[in-house]
């Protein structure tokens, strides 16, 4: 076994190189002082960031993405939380089927979700917009929010809710003053995870928006004009935003739990 030890660390190192290689290349060449984001490296500049941050279309797309992510995640969280509360508290006939139905969209490719909605909306005469994309993103994130909330509802909470009810609290008061605060870490985790998924989602947004596109769709159209350090710069910014959201969620989650 001793002989294996260096191999173990070699494997770990190789894995990290593989995992970080594309990100490192992406970020490094976002500072490229030249037209092409490939070697040789011609010196560092932040011009591409200035160009990207001054680009109106890109900034509009980024605004759309933020709005979409926050709004659709909030709706998905409320729906998921209420459903989880209902299914965890009350014994309903056919509960396992209901649970499976609510989880099912998670196992379906986003292409199918998007295509189905596109056809339905065009049948109903609804134009593609940020709104229709938001409807799709709620479908995408509802299973996740439901599953996280449902898994977090334990017995301890059940007794706290019963105590509140015995003391005369109405169902709304129980929900907002007992259940939601007790579940705050899980709710936050579900919300932030949904935000990152929606922020990054491409195919539903591509199929269901026309003019008010989101950032991934805008990046996609940038790609079509070939390699450019500007794309690296946008990609690095998006990465940074996601990492900040994830780290913030993790910090929040850990602090509450501690």
């Amino acid at each position: 076994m001793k002989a294996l030890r260096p191999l173990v660390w070699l494997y770990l190192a190789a894995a990290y190189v593989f995992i970080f290689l594309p990100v490192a290349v992406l970020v490094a060449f976002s500072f490229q002082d030249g037209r092409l984001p490939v070697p040789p490296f011609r010196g560092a500049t932040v011009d591409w960031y200035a160009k990207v941050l001054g680009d109106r279309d890109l900034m509009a797309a980024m605004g759309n993405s933020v709005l979409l992510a926050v709004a659709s995640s909030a709706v998905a969280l409320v729906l998921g939380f209420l459903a989880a509360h209902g299914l965890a508290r009350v014994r309903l006939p056919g509960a396992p089927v209901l649970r499976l139905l609510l989880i099912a969209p998670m196992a379906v490719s986003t292409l199918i979700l998007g295509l189905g909605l596109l056809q339905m909306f065009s049948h109903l005469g609804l134009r593609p917009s940020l709104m229709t994309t938001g409807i799709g993103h709620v479908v995408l994130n509802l299973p996740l929010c439901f599953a996280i909330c449902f898994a977090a509802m334990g017995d301890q909470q059940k007794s706290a809710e019963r105590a509140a009810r015995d003391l005369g609290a109405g169902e709304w008061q129980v929900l907002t003053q007992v259940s939601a605060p007790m579940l705050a870490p899980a709710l936050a985790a579900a919300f932030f995870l949904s935000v990152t998924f929606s922020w990054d989602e491409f195919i539903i947004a591509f199929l269901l928006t026309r003019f008010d596109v989101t950032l991934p769709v805008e990046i996609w159209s940038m790609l079509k004009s070939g390699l450019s350090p500007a794309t690296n710069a946008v990609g690095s910014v998006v990465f940074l935003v996601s990492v900040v959201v994830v780290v913030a969620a993790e910090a929040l989650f850990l602090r509450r739990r501690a």
Partner: protein
Amino acid sequence: MSLAAREARLGWGLVAPALAWTVAFFVLPFLGMLALSFARMDGREVVPALDPGNYLRLATEPQMLGALVNSLQITALVTVLSVLLAYPLAAIIAFRVPRRWQRLALLLAILPFWTSYVVRSYAWLLVLGQNGVLNQALDALGLGPLELAATRAATVIGFVHFFVMLLTLTIYANLVQLPPNYARAAADLGAGPVRAFVHVILPLTLPGVVTGAFLTFVLCIGDYITPQILGGNSELTLPQLIMLQLGRSGNFPFASALSVVLMVIVTLAWAATARWVRLDRI
């Protein structure tokens, strides 16, 4: 009203909004898609019908069937490779990295998971392209260029990169839940490390592995971006074919039929692994 009836009404009231949303924007669109997949195209007009022609077309035209086969091959290869690469990584982090560094090691191993999905494939293009980092490095070493961009290999590398991170996470979560006594007990009973792994650790981590593999399969076979950016147009996958039908010819019935087939494949994969995969427990 009795207490039980009031309880039930409350329960339904709480579940109703989510249920209504899922039925209206998931179940109904899918049923619509199913109906549309049996429709015919008359020029650019969709004619409602009960025609299995779209499915027959997939089964008989070599290009269409080829896309299906490509998708299945790529997905199978990616799933197997990702599990094989992720398992040792998860095990090293769980058993070899000191406890206080484990969280950091794991966080680092999945950090690039959060790069934008479109950008991630683009970044691999910068690495694997003709003038990319890899070829320039090989050139410096006096080795010939590798033609990787716009090949299946590039698609597979891009996919494996993503799913290794996902699987490392699910397998690690499984490994750290194992009581350390089990491995020790196996050793006390005379099992070598290999036997202890094969007979004790591996079976206990199978649910995590299978759940991760199922997610890999589903996400991989339905993905359009990675094969489109990295595979170029060297070969088509099923999602690329679906997008082509939407864009170029506006053939929604055929795109619907292809989507239904995709859905059936995913359902079959779920049925095959349902013993281990608990979607409601993720």
